[in-house]
């Protein structure tokens, strides 16, 4: 094997979601559930316990009819890198069991179900409500167990789960690349299920550090923003919207603050 003499910067997998394209159809939600063996309950209308790794929220500008506007916003796990991408994601920082960890090679926040003992500290820490708890054992009635994919572990009660950026697809793509004698992946080789399913092409996924990947240039769009950016969680999911009220809805702005302002409170890390 060739000896690598340089440290290449790690990959930083992220997403750019164009909110002008999102129609709120929910394909991304269903694709994620089918890909990742997410179970269904009889009553999913209680959204506090409904497990949806990808969840599409509906924003409104709250103006009266007919000036009302709405915007759908798909929210996967943000795979926060923390300040400077040092891996201090809110959830990783609090997990007592190292069930969740930040992978510096891909930028993905992992979740190992067999390490988690269900304290839910990570759920409290996550500002994006991206983590879900299995209050009950999942049930797959009739012959539905046949539809389970062997690439993703089914969870049982007492365990927290969340979007993994379809990490199993990364593993499979890397295995294929290794077999073919490669170490790098093409943009199309590793795509998340939600990206693949979206009928509008609203979701773009790729390596934010790779100039050949679309996401690396899309994230610099002047209309791009991230959710709760000023918490300095450093999320990997960028949103693009040509509408100012949507960009403002992405954070807690004071009435007279301009959109996309810098964080007002500087942490002790500078």
């Amino acid at each position: 094997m060739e000896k690598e003499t340089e440290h290449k910067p790690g990959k930083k997998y992220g997403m750019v979601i164009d909110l002008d394209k999102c129609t709120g159809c929910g394909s991304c939600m269903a694709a994620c559930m089918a890909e990742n063996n997410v179970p269904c309950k009889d009553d999913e209308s209680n959204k506090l316990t409904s497990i949806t790794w990808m969840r599409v929220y509906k924003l409104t500008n709250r103006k009266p009819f007919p000036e009302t506007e709405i915007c759908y916003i798909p929210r996967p796990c943000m795979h926060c890198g923390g300040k400077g991408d040092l891996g201090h994601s809110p959830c990783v920082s609090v997990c007592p069991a190292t069930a969740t960890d930040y992978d510096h090679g891909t930028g993905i926040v992992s979740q190992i179900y067999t390490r988690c003992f269900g304290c839910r500290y990570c759920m409290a820490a996550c500002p994006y409500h991206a983590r879900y708890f299995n209050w009950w054992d999942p049930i797959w009635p009739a012959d539905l167990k046949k539809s389970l994919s062997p690439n993703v572990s089914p969870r049982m009660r007492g365990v927290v789960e969340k979007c993994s950026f379809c990490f199993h697809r990364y593993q499979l793509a890397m295995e294929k690349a290794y077999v073919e004698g490669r170490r790098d992946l093409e943009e199309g080789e590793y795509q998340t299920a939600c990206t693949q399913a979206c009928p509008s092409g609203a979701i773009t996924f790729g390596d934010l550090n790779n100039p050949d990947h679309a996401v690396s240039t899309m994230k610099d769009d002047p209309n791009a923003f991230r959710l709760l950016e000023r918490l300095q969680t450093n999320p990997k999911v960028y949103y693009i919207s040509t509408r100012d009220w949507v960009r403002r809805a992405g954070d807690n702005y004071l009435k007279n603050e301009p959109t996309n302002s810098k964080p007002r409170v500087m942490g002790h890390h500078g």
Partner: protein
Amino acid sequence: MMKIDRRSFLALGLGVAAGTALTPLPWKLTDDVSIWTQNWRWLPVPGDGDVTMEIGSCTLCPGGCGISVRKVGDRIVKIEGLPGHPVNDGGICALGISGTQLLYGGGRIKSPMKRSGERGQNKWSPISWDDAIAEVTTEIKKLVEAGKLESLACITGSDRGTTPLLFKRLLAVLGSPNFMTTSSMADSYSTVIRKMHGLSGAVDAGFDFENTGFVLSFGSGIVEGWGSPLRMIRTANDLKTKKVAMVQVEQRLSNTAAFTQALVAVKPGTEADLALGMAAVIVAENLHNASAVSGFAEFAAMLKQQFSPDAVSAKTGLKSTAIAELARKFADPANRSLAICGRGQGSAPGSMREFMAVHTLNALVGRVNTQGGVYAVQAPDYIDWAKDASMTAAITGKTRIDEAGVGAFAHTDSLLNRLPAKILAKGDSPVGLLLVSEANPVYTLAGTKQVMEAFKKIPYIVSFSTTMDETTALADIILPNHSYLERYQDIPVRAGLVKPLINLVKPVAAPQYDTQNAGDVVIKIAKALEAPVADAFPWENYEDCLAKTLGDKWEPMKEKGFWTDEAFVPSAGSSAFAFPAQLPDAPVLAGDEKAMALVLLPKESMRLWGGAVADLPFVLKTVPNTDLKGNQVVVEINPKTAASLGLADGKEALLTTASGSATVTVTFFEGIMEGVVAIPKGLGHTGSEKYIADKGVNTGDLIAPFEDPVSGMDAAFGTRASLKRA
């Protein structure tokens, strides 16, 4: 006792503290606790196996998507969109993705079933296929002997493709013309094109959105499932990127209106008036296409008389200046405009007044049978045996029970909505034996109460359904079809495309249960009936029939999953367009205007499907709790209207219409017109599937049908309603 001095005590204490801080024991313990509490037997460990990708087609809606199915061994673990397919090119909707939950789910009928209790009690005993086919054959023979062959009826979802036509052929050879299909906007478009272009046969509207410069949508759910849902979402996004303007005429901020960011709010039911008001401006300002000829003079006179700017303004609630501006924009040839209609997903047929008005508007400015406009498209004509004498000889001159195809309703093929009243009329049911395949009329027809009564009066019902749906629950015998993932079938796509497309439903999974392809069963029944019926079915089995029918398309379709003709140019509508001198009246909203001051409108979405196929668990999970909360449907209302009625957000209310009432939960939404209540379609299912049964209410329970005077189809778009504090 050991003597410990202070120094040793402190040293020991520090040692213990340091050891505790450095020990991995707590973390090892948490790890062990996690693993040993998750080792239970019932946690599934999905088996591994060879991974293969297979091509198939989705039939869960009429959109005609191609699918790529990922299998591990012989299990389907994921359904994805087929890259390169003309309709969806790799994308897929939530319902399509959830197909595995239909294939492997609890709603499946696992073998032929015979009713063993009273009708509707849901008591069944399994029987063998030989017995089931023998029983149905015997029942048909009884009709032959009694000379009551016209009481043999059939309801299918569509009349295109070999399987529905085999049913039609069975009826035709036996002497019954009573082959019916569930109606939708596709049928309204066919009727309007036949009537206004003087055409006949299988002709549809094809929309060339890809080349349009301005879209005017009269309530059509462009990104919510109208036409071919995936094709429309992709195309709408392409149009948006090209900065093509799209205007949505509607009473609420639907997802389509939100996507277009251009909502024109008109009073409910006045969409046709807006179209004609626009036409009046176009004619008055001489902006129309000069080549428009036949009937134009009378049409223009009618517009001048009935659709003056003030009259239309009063009717629609729009300013006359706004109507004029919209008209001028629509008429500008540089805009290559296209007007479309068919509310929501177009699952309800709609009114001929609206369809004729919108089609006329397109014709007026030369947008019919031209690039970027609407085409009259002849359906692919590849089923030769569907044109032979067997299909007509024994039924020529016979009147259908639903009276479609003759007299007033000459341009409509099927009027299923008229069947319940015919059945419930005095005397025996005119339907003696009903076959139902790929349709769920007991759920989907408006005026559910009357529909249920009618079906209960039919002496013998045979269902070919894959799942235990509402219509099948009333059957006497079930001959379950394979699901669309387990069988072969040709599906000519009828969803507003311009180029012809025939999808091939392919068996990507082995049959999971003791089911049979309905095509095979029809051929078996025909053969069991012997000559002359058997002679009209000269195939060994359905696959033989399909292969012979498709001819040289068969092998390429098996490989690719579909057939299309990229070089196709529509030529059907070259015949002249006849302008209407008068338009039929608008459907009347049922209910007393004083007692019921609100208008109840159904809404359709990509997350809650209101057709024959109910939402599957994954899809139902995406439904927000502003549509379904617990087991109760949630209705949308403007906060101002709610305030005037004393209703609180998130609280219960009693919704009453002329058809019935239901307890609902109320949600406030700024984006809906005052005086209008929106209710989602797709709820109110019954049965034993707990994730969906007995949740919400079927809009068919609350909205009665309204027979269109020209097409005969159900033109109801809503109803009057009252909403009172519960």
